[in-house]
Structure formats: structure tokens, C-alpha cells
């Protein structure tokens, strides 16, 4: 096979892996948007907050240490324990559920029946608040996240492809884990939503609030549930991204890539979020590979948006979104 084609294949594979991250964040958006019509600007920050909390709990960091030390003149920083990765993940998941309950109690409950733009603004506020809270609780430094996921280049794939094509693909083992975990997560979410009563309640609320109330579904409960799930999805995204690039503020910026993914996939479609994420991830890597050198590189910053815009012109409802035909 020609060298160029092999490179392109490797690049696409790497792009697919990046796309999984976008897809995970977009998935969180879609879940909340479907169930409550809220465009949750804070989804990316949720991932950052989850990752920060995970590192903090795992390392036994004292939350709010800076504040406590400043007030009481103490010198706290660590409890002195180190939790196993799985335990820390489980605890963080609980924290995310707690956060979902607080968000419902303190924000959503008071904004029932408000215009979507108001709810959107509320999530912008939430995003900045959580960003600050994460800083104050766990400190603003870049943190290393290691929950025991395999790292480094997969030698197996390297050798396998080398024997096959005479050219070894460099694929990060972490990316493979991310792909497997993301697939499992989507499968679990699908099973949950299709075959359990809570999943059915969730779909019911997404479909028609009034009808959902009439069959005895509490909207507030469903909102807590859906924000908890979105928090959990954010945690998974935070773990993958954090293990790869460290936990830092830029993690919340992957949310900005989720926007073009949503334009592509449609705001209400779970398969759309996945496929959209993969297309954008792969598209931007391939574009950078082929066209980047010709036009000076750094195309990854804008390519996703341009692709989404072009797409919007031809299919405004997204790949899988339902076409809305105005009744006249």
C-alpha cells in the first residue's frame, strides 16, 4: 500500500479516538437537552469539575485547603491517604449525583416554565461558578490523573500493522481504552433508556411534560436523574481527557468542540452525538494532514466550525435530528 494512504489511515484512526471525546461531551448535552430543553453550557466545566474532584479524592487533597489555611493560619494540604482508582471514581460519581441534586434544588426548581434563553443563561452562570468552585476546592495547578489506565503506544497494534503493511501504526493504548469505555457507556445508557422504568420515564419526559405528569412522573426527579447521568458522562470524559493531557482548565474547552458536533448530529439525537463526534474528530485530523501544510497549519482550531456551518446550510436539523415542519 502507498505510504501516503497508510499515513492517512493512521491519522483517521487517531482522529476517531479524539472524536470519542467530543462525542462523550456532546452526549451529555443531548441527554439534558432532550429531557428538559436546556442547552447546558456547563457540560464541559462539569467534566473539568469531575476530573478535579477525582484527582483530589484520590490524592487525599483537603478541599478548600487554601481558604482554610488563609483563615485559620493552618498548613493543611493532604489527608495523607491515597485511594485506589475505582474507589475514587465511585466517590466522584456520588459527588456528581450530589451536585445534580443541588443544581435542581438551587437553580432549576426556581426556573420552571421560564424561556429557554433564561435557562441557558443560568447554565452559563453555573459554568463560571463551577469553574471557580473547582479552583477554590482543589487548587488551580495542573494535575496529573492516573487511575491505572494503560498508557503509551500499543506495541501489539504497532507490530501487527507493521507485519501487515510494513508500516506500524502508532495508536495510544489510552485511546483504545477510551473507545471501549465509551462504547460500553453508550450501550449501557441505551439499555437503561430502553428497558428500565426510569429510562422510560426519562424518554416520556423528553417527549411530553404534560403527559409525563399525568402518568405520575415527577419532573424534578427526572431532572436530578438526567443531570446525574450527564455528570457521570462528564466524569468519564474527564477521566479519559485528564489521563491523557492532565487535569487543567483547558479540559472545559472541549465543550466548545461539542457545539459543532451537535450541529452535525442534531441536538436531540444520541446516535447523532456519537456519529457527529467521530466525523468531526476524524475530519479535523484528516484535514490538518492533507490541507494543513498547504495553508499554514493549525486548522484544527476552526475546521470543526466551518464543517458544521457548511452542514447547517444543507441540513439544518442535523444528521439524525427530526425535521421540524412549521404547522400553518
Amino acid at each position, binding site marked *: 500500500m502507498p505510504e501516503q494512504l497508510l499515513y492517512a489511515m493512521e491519522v483517521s484512526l487517531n482522529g476517531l479516538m479524539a472524536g470519542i471525546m467530543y462525542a462523550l461531551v456532546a452526549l451529555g448535552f443531548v441527554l439534558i437537552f432532550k429531557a428538559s430543553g436546556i442547552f447546558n453550557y456547563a457540560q464541559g466545566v462539569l467534566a473539568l469539575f469531575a476530573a478535579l474532584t477525582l484527582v483530589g479524592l484520590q490524592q487525599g487533597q483537603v478541599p478548600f485547603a487554601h481558604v482554610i489555611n488563609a483563615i485559620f493560619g493552618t498548613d493543611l494540604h493532604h489527608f495523607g491517604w491515597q485511594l485506589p482508582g475505582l474507589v475514587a471514581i465511585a466517590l466522584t460519581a456520588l459527588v456528581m449525583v450530589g451536585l445534580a441534586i443541588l443544581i435542581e434544588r438551587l437553580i432549576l426548581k426556581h426556573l420552571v416554565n421560564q424561556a429557554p434563553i433564561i435557562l441557558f443563561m443560568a447554565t452559563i452562570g453555573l459554568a463560571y461558578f463551577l469553574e471557580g468552585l473547582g479552583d477554590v476546592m482543589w487548587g488551580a495547578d495542573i494535575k496529573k490523573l492516573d487511575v491505572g489506565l494503560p498508557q503509551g503506544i500499543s506495541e501489539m497494534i504497532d507490530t501487527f500493522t507493521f507485519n501487515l503493511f510494513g508500516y506500524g501504526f502508532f495508536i495510544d493504548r489510552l485511546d483504545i481504552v477510551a473507545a471501549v469505555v465509551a462504547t460500553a457507556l453508550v450501550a449501557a445508557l441505551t439499555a437503561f433508556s430502553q428497558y428500565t422504568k426510569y429510562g422510560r420515564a426519562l424518554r416520556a419526559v423528553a417527549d*411530553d411534560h404534560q403527559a409525563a*405528569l399525568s402518568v405520575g412522573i415527577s419532573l424534578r426527579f427526572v431532572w436530578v436523574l438526567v443531570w446525574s447521568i450527564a455528570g457521570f458522562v462528564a466524569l468519564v470524559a474527564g477521566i479519559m481527557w485528564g489521563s491523557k493531557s492532565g487535569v487543567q482548565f483547558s479540559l472545559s474547552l472541549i465543550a466548545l468542540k461539542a457545539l459543532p458536533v451537535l450541529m452535525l448530529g442534531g441536538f436531540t439525537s444520541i446516535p447523532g452525538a456519537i456519529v457527529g463526534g467521530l466525523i468531526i474528530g476524524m475530519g479535523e485530523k484528516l484535514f490538518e494532514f492533507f490541507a494543513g501544510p498547504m495553508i499554514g497549519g493549525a486548522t484544527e482550531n476552526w475546521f470543526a466550525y466551518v464543517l458544521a456551518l457548511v452542514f447547517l446550510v444543507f441540513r439544518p436539523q442535523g444528521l439524525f435530528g427530526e425535521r421540524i415542519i412549521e404547522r400553518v
Partner: protein
Amino acid sequence: MNAMNSEGYTTADGRKIGGVMMEMKNITLRFGGVKAITDISFDIREGEIRAIIGPNGAGKSSMLNVISGFYVPQEGEVWFHGQRRAPMKPYEVAQQGIARTFQNIALFEGMSVLDNIMTGRLTLMKTGLFQQAMWWGRAQKEETAHREKVEKVIDFLEIQDIRKTPVGRLPYGLKKRVELARALAAEPKLLLLDEPMAGMNVEEKEDMCRFILDVNDEFGTTIALIEHDMGVVMDLSDRVVVMDYGKKIGDGTPDEVRNNQDVINAYLGVAHD
């Protein structure tokens, strides 16, 4: 009809009607300056088919919405099974065994007929979220048991062949039937139907009438229904409340109501004074 007392009465066709299940006392409901309901009282007895009739805009749907918790009246009390009901959210009312349908049909359009009807059983499913996650098998067993009940409802309403169809694709008459099926799946003590026959053709109306009578007869379900068509109401109901401009202008058996001068005036469009 025998004399009515707190124990109930026996209908002309020999059905036993029990004591008071739901009692509305001096209900007044306003929307801004508009009075949708003015000081209305009436009761619904165990096992009876109770109709609410009246011209358009009389406040019938509003009354049903008060019973099901969608509207909160400014004045008056709602009594259920001999107890005064605190203001409740619609989902809490549903959990008390009160199911309903809507005048403008509120179904889950994107879900299949079967899934729609399954949502009717949500209040009866007991497995908690955590248990559901931990013991998938047990949760699935519960799911299967409920599914069997739902299949009975599907057979009862003769909608076997559309059970997998997305509701959004169904014609109007069938949607109305699916909405009834979802309400029935909850095995309600009290069933509230808002114009179950509106917009149907003659054949569909006859089917719906038969279903309503059968539900009441076979399951002993108490039914309160709103209907426009006087003929239908006379055939179906044991007692009738008549509303006009938010006020109660008649209450009694179909025969009593039919001969009430206020009711005749309202229906003939006699000018109000």
C-alpha cells in the same frame, strides 16, 4: 333510581353504586380576571359513571384539571376517600390512583404504542433505581409481569396490531384509544376522561362507548367524563353535572337534567341575564 344515601344507590340496570369517593366543595378557579369555575360543589361516588357537560368554555376541562392537580383552585376543597386533600402536584395525584386523558391528546408521540401504555404502569412499579441497577434480573422480572398486564389492556381495547407502531403515525381515533389504554394500564380507582369521543366518527364513538361501559362494568372503575354530545351522555352516565359559564346549573340523573329548564336554556342558547 333508589333514594340516594351515604351508602350509595342502585342504578336502573342494577349496578351498585357506593359511597362518596371524591367530593369537590365550593371550588372557585380564576385565571387573572377570568373566572373559569365559580363556587361549584359536587361529588363522585364509588363505581359510578359521572358526566360533566356544558357548552364550550363552560369550565369542564378546568374542573377535570383541578381534580387531577394540573390547576390549583383559589378557593374550595377537594376531598378524596373522606379526607381533605392538600394541594398536590399532578404526578402525586396520579400516584393516588387517579388516571386521566386529555381533550387534546397528550401521548408520547415518539414512543411505540406499547411503550406509551407501559408508562401508565410507572406508578405501580416498585423496584428502586439502585435495585434496578444492582439486580438487573429482578428488575426484568418485574418488567415482564407489568408487560403481561399491559398486554391484557391491549387485548381489551383491541389494539393488538398497532402495538409496535410509533404513536405519532396513528390516526386521531386510534390515538384517543391508546391514551385510554395508557390510563387503564395504571389500574386507576378513578378515571378522568376529557371528551373521549370528540372528533370521532360514528363507528369509533360506538366503540369508545362500549369500552367505557366495559371498563366500569368489568373492573368497577369509577369514571368521570366530559362530553359534548347529549345523546352519548344520556346513554352512558349515571349522574350528570351541567356547567355553564363556570357555574353549576344542574346536577342529577340524565332524566332529571334533561328536564331542567336552566339546562334546556343553556343548550338552546337562550340569552343570559
